[in-house]
């Protein structure tokens, strides 16, 4: 009885002073979002849902490729992988015994890296010797390693959606657990935040090289998009590929990654979102027990000052490959929460969908494209608007481009019709309601808006778009969708040259 009273007092105190628990009413929907901030700066969002027996548990760090400089691109993504390698307590039977072995591997890896850089080669016999030595030390270390213990703990507890992802400005560690197993998330994630150990670093770096080959080197669309993005942003670090440039990945060291971790992976740069069968007061109390004593970063995360300069003219990029031909028109737009972004959402609506202006014109009428659409992409700083079209094989890309330019001009000249506005409003409402269906999707949306400014914006965002007056739209188009300052990407079918044909033929010895 007395214990219950103490518990209630503690919960009351937490709720009063460390949390801002606001039941939110987004027009027709009651979404009980409980927001709180721990003393060490860790933000917590809890959304109870009593109809389910699971909880989506997600820990977001506000770091990604946007915070990486030349030579360091891909470090956040590398750490996404390394977080599964364990801590001082998990994934090991004897951490102190591992320490000198990891140091020995670091030394050998440095020698290997120097050799490869000097020889501009990755496969000669000296490199092979270093690799064997690294493998031998790693074998010794593996006597103490408990393989993939974190993954195993989660999986054996009925975890679903167990994974992690990295984006430009956010990295997430995600799992959905039965409601009685949520404490496992607190334990593992607080330990990963406090005590990460970068074991098996060199082999995981090889894994990432394989991922890079799969996503970019051997996938024409991936290859195209990576290069187009780095041409579109000439200064802003959004130009960095999230996975990192190949040469940067090869040059990763444990020391580099440790520096990155200490700077960004701290409670004051993180957010926990729990959605599902959970009591918000108990959750806040438990999170404080597990995470509350983890210190803030001694220095605040470095502010990225680089901004994209206004484009000086049109940029055009053409690549020939074995891929369905396409054209992308990219426009620079302001960072969140500039009011223009809501107007550009309306423009996205005008252009997109099967009854949208671009589909009607270029797929239905002109028969030049197989699909087409537009997307408004708000970002923390320099956002972008994209019009994309998948071309029919015999379509003239110049004609497609000319028609898209015409449609942009029309949108800049006259406001959308009442029917278009109604379609867009319904679409936004439907997207908002549908987004609440999934526990995991709702977690990501709340985190994304909290990253941009505040989770509360998620609830007002649809209303802000619906409030745009048709007459305001042409000016936004005129100002930001300026064809004279756009970046155009063209992915075109490989010309049927003799060399191209040769590449597709069987080599003589295998025919």
């Amino acid at each position, binding site marked *: 009885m007395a214990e219950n009273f103490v518990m209630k007092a503690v919960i009351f105190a937490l709720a009063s002073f460390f949390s801002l628990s606001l039941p939110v009413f987004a027009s027709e929907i009651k979404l009980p979002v409980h927001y709180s901030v721990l003393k060490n700066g860790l933000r917590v969002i809890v959304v109870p849902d009593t109809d389910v027996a699971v909880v989506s548990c997600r820990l977001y760090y506000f770091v990604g490729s946007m915070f990486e400089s030349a030579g360091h691109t891909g470090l956040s993504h590398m750490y996404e992988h390394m977080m599964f390698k364990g801590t001082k307590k998990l994934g090991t039977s004897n951490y102190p015994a591992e320490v000198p072995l990891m140091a020995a591997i670091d030394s050998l890896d440095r020698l290997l890296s120097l050799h490869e850089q000097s020889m501009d080669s990755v496969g000669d016999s000296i490199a092979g010797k270093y690799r064997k030595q690294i493998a031998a030390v790693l074998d010794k270390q593996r006597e103490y390693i408990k393989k993939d213990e974190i993954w195993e703990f989660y999986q054996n507890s009925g975890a*679903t959606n167990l994974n992690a992802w990295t984006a430009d400005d956010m990295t997430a560690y995600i799992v959905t657990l039965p409601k009685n197993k949520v404490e496992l998330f607190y334990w593992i994630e607080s330990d990963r935040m406090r005590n990460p150990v970068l074991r098996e670093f060199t082999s995981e770096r090889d894994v990432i090289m394989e991922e890079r080959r799969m996503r970019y080197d051997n996938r024409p669309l991936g290859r195209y998009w990576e290069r187009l993005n780095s041409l579109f942003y000439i200064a802003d670090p959004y130009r960095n590929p999230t996975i990192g440039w190949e040469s940067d990945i090869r040059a990763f060291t444990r020391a580099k990654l440790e520096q990155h971790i200490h700077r960004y992976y701290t409670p004051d740069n993180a957010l926990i979102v729990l959605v599902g069968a959970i009591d918000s007061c108990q959750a806040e109390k438990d999170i404080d027990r597990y995470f509350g004593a983890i210190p803030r970063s001694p220095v605040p995360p470095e502010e990225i000052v680089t901004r994209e300069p206004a484009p000086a003219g049109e940029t055009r990029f053409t690549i020939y490959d074995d891929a369905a031909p396409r054209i992308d028109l990219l426009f620079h737009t302001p960072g969140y929460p500039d009011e223009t972004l809501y107007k550009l959402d309306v423009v996205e609506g005008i252009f997109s969908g099967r009854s949208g202006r671009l589909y009607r014109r270029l797929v239905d009428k002109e*028969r030049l494209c*197989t699909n087409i659409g537009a997307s408004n992409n708000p970002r923390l700083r320099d956002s972008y608007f994209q019009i994309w079209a998948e071309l029919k094989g015999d379509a003239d890309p110049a004609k497609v481009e000319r028609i898209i330019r015409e449609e942009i001009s029309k949108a800049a000249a006259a406001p959308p019709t009442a029917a278009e506005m109604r*379609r867009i409003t319904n679409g936004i409402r439907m997207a908002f309601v549908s987004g609440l269906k999934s526990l995991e999707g709702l977690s990501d949306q709340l985190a994304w808006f909290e990253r941009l400014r505040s989770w509360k914006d998620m609830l007002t965002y649809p209303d802000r778009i619906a409030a745009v007056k048709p007459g305001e739209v042409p000016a936004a188009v005129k100002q930001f969708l300026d064809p004279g300052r756009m970046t155009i990407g063209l992915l075109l079918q490989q010309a049927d040259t003799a060399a191209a044909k040769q590449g*597709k033929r069987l080599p003589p010895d295998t025919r």
Partner: protein
Amino acid sequence: MKRHPFTMKKAYTLFTILVLAALSAVAADRRAFPLPAHPSRIQFNKLKWTVPLGSPCRVSLANGLRAYVAVDSQLPLVQISAYFRYGTLCDPAGKEGLCALTARLMLTGGTREYNADTLDALIDLYAMNFNVSASEDLLQFSASFLADYLDTAFSVMQQVLFQTRFDSVKLDKEKQISLETIRHRFDNPVPTLDIAYQKSMYSGSPAARLPTEKSITRIGRNDCAGLHRRAITTGNCIFAIAGAFNRAAMLERLEKLFPASGAANDTTFPKIDAMPALKCLVVHKPISQVYVRFGVPLFKRPHADYYAASVANLILGGGGFSSRLGTKVRSDAGLTYSIYSSAESNYTYPGTWYIEFFTKNESFPLAMSLALKVIDSLRAHGPDAEECANAKASLIDEMPSMFRSPFDIVSTYAWNEYYGRSPEHYSKYPDSIRAITGKAVKQAVAKYLDPALFSCTIVGDTSALSRYGTADGFSLEKLSPRRTITPDSIAALP
């Protein structure tokens, strides 16, 4: 309004006291409830959850429709899945692609009341997410829409399902889009591997047939309309709906939506056996990685060995990083980003049990050798008791995630009935898994995953394969007879 200074001061004092009390309460809480030293020491409460039943939602309507209906007022939304017994396996020889094309045209080809453009506009205007898709053994209509538009959505749905126009101009447009898709289906290595493996394992059967430029060109409006008449009938459908509506009124709507004249279950899928034609099929693609899938024919479900094979598969390569293949080939050796195994669950024809990975060209033989050694070890020794118990616990404890919402319940049970499973299937599932022994798992591996029977499909640069074909006891030469082709030749394989 002027604030009284004394009141303000009192408020600040009270605030400070409460903050200090809260801080000390938190600190005391941390002391009073010390954290477990290790995750294995956490005392979890027993999960209070039982598998929800589908039967309370199940109705048989007077028009012959079998439906699962659940009210869910949490969101102003309605969700639908309708399963029609048909699929791409039913495509007549020479008209491959017909079922998929018909599915698309049901949405894009207009209806008796609305021409195609008006239908598009209506669906967009009311933000109705309608979709019709075709898989090998299932033709599925799905929808979600705002509950406000229930009347409009049902009216449009009635047109889409039963008054389809198959406008010939739109048919031509969809055929052009299909042809473009066909031209680019081998651009990427993973879909190339999927198709080549299917060709290799089911050679000469309907499961290996592909739409071609010729087969798409042959399809006419009457083909689509004929298929639609056969497949989209009341008796051929199992319907699932959940959302913010009145249940009794919904049953009335469904009585009106579905005509009473539909015939029941007259679709017969062709008999198909997995018969690998080759030991190894290599598709030449000059890229920097080798994409590999090797497997053996499994069985058609239901089958007594399925659960043992499922547990074995989770231990072998279905369980992510901590499965044996993931540990050895990815985590230890760093040779791949993805390696996994799959014991396919297939109710229409025998599936296969396969292992798939990709790796840089020079690592291919080593990765292959390691994967085969993992299989050999599991065959020889079976799983240890702990990994067997963990795999079973994992399969059972995932169940609450399957049944999160009323729509999950109705759609899962409708799907369950579509494949002829018992209404108690999910209730009995935990006990079925618990009953699997380590011995049964070992037997399943020994019985099915016989390396001598593996058929291997590879997509990669054949010159590199020749150069790096042998390492660590594995040689490409072991995979013979072997046939090497270009992507352009895949469609011509039987």
